[in-house]
């Protein structure tokens, strides 16, 4: 392989994992926009998505398409349930309490996953064959196209949802000003519930598409959440387009680092990027300084 095709290969695998970081970041953004909460359990939704899909498709032999939607619905239900049981009953919680409670939710989901599936790593068949396509000297798995397609589809659908549906508009209103939204008759609490379910559903979709390539085990959530948060911050918290681009950047950087420096430090690279962005420009590269001033870093 020439150096150029080697670099291309790393970039392609970076795009793979990067779209997942982007999707996790969108999940963060949806909840952050309606509630101001960063849900540290976001990575667990991705893990649950992959695991439930494996059980339904490989275990119960349900065909790919219905299993996909069933998984997404189930994980969305878990997300909604989490909001109802843990977030909803809190009276005037402080940020510290909210952080700890989402951390608790995350270890609880992880524990339940370990209880159900054990500690093994699970496989899921690729959506359409494992024959790599040659692409300028680099090999491209058909699954990569699925990942990109589904990421693009989700971003597009979300854009339409927030722009044209009444519920989507109501959620954007909550993001802009909760009190004002409440005054015009929007049920803010319902929107919070919906935002948790929606971001869980997106996390689940991310988990399903990545499992054929990256495999899945119960312990995957925290690292995915951390890197997804990196993407969310780098893209400017609350900015979904920025999140996907930032996800790609982190994914590509990580794969280039793994290829040219050392694979042992692969995970550290993304985290260094996260720390540097937080220290230098917490508003993100796509966030404007003006909106940043309104936020609480």
């Amino acid at each position, binding site marked *: 392989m020439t150096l150029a095709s080697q670099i291309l290969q790393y970039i392609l695998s970076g795009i793979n994992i990067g779209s997942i970081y982007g999707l996790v970041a969108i999940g963060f953004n949806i909840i952050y926009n309606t509630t101001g909460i960063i849900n540290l359990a976001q990575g667990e939704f991705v893990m649950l998505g992959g695991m439930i899909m494996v059980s339904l498709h490989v275990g119960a032999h349900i065909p790919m398409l219905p299993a996909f939607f069933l998984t997404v619905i189930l994980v969305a239900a878990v997300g909604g349930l989490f909001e109802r049981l843990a977030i909803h*009953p809190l009276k005037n919680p402080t940020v510290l309490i909210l952080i700890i409670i989402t951390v*608790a939710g995350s270890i609880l989901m992880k*524990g339940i996953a370990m209880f159900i599936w054990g500690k093994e790593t699970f496989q899921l068949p690729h959506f359409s064959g494992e024959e790599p396509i040659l692409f300028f000297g680099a090999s491209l798995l058909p699954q990569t196209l699925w990942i990109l397609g589904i990421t693009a589809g989700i971003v597009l659908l979300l854009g339409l949802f927030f722009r044209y549906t009444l519920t989507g508009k109501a959620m954007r209103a909550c993001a802009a000003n909760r009190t004002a939204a409440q005054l015009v008759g929007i049920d803010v609490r319902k929107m919070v519930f919906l935002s948790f379910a929606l971001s869980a559903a997106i996390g689940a979709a991310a988990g399903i598409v990545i499992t054929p390539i990256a495999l899945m085990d119960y312990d995957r959530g925290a690292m995915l959440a951390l890197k997804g948060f990196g993407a969310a911050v780098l893209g400017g918290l609350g900015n979904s387009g920025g999140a996907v681009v930032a996800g790609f950047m982190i994914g590509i950087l990580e794969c280039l680092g793994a290829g040219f420096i050392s694979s042992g430090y692969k995970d550290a690279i993304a985290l260094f990027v996260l720390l540097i962005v937080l220290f230098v420009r917490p508003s993100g590269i796509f966030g404007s300084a003006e909106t940043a001033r309104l936020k609480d870093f």
Partner: protein
Amino acid sequence: MGRWNRVSLVVLAGVAGAMPFLLGTDSYYISVLVMAGIRSIVAIGLSLLMGYAGQISLGHGALFGLGAYSSGLLTTLHPQSGWLAGILPLSPWTALVVAAVMTAAIAYAIGTPCLRLRGHYLAMATLAFGEIVVIFFVAMVDLTGGPSGFGGIPDLPYVGSFPAWLIDPEGGYNLFVYRDTHYYFLVWIVVILTLIFSLNLIHSRVGRALRSIHGSELAASTMGVNTAKYKVQVFVLSAIFASVAGSLYAHFVTFVSPTACELKYSILLLTMVAVGGMANVWGAVLGAVLLTLLPEYLRAFEDYDVLVYGGILIGILMFMPQGLLVGCIQLIGKIKPVRKTTG
């Protein structure tokens, strides 16, 4: 320090001192209580940071790990060449101090930019820092043994140096024969010293400054409190506590591996502080002891202890957001309404 705290300290010292005599020769429970003491030291530091200054840290497991790994490496490495050849290995006490200084320096370097962040951002930054430290421990296989860790860490020289009349196997004090008992007394003396230091700190100018930051950072800085300085200082202090606890752990267990400092451990520490009650260093000790003893009674759960911790954490935060200590005091207050309590 207040009368209540002084009485509590004496009670704690008495109970801790009596424990080995009550448990007699059962060295298993003594070793569990050594771990409870080690975790109490970290939890007290974390409680100063979280409960008093109102700053979260999901990286304290890593600070503990830095202490443990530094102590372990400084006392086991035998370099044949280079400028360190004549210096290493250090004696365990020197290593403990060097480890604490190094951890404090790292905490200062990372804390200064981190603590400018607030809330979720701070949580994520400390989480990322913790994960980076663990990644380095795992990846530097030649030095740290990678995922499986390294052993052969020597005992602290104090162990086994009790006067002969205490160790007399014929006499009544033969429990001092056990190595674990030596660590037990050492660790709980450190816990009590840490408590005395922290209680004095809380009731000083610095403590009032920290609480004012928790109340409102903006108001505190308007009143002339150098909030950035105090936040970093308390972070460094809690890092020193964590490092000392890590060093004690390394010498006690004689073995360190990344599991001693991974994210799960940081969350466990957070749980201890939250369960005991964040705004109280006594709560931190209570939480550490409870959550160390609890798994011993939940043997059936084995690896599912995370599940139990998660459940406890959610339950406590929802029903007793101020922690067990304050929660129980309020419950007693409700049963016997002697005077009106707020909240």
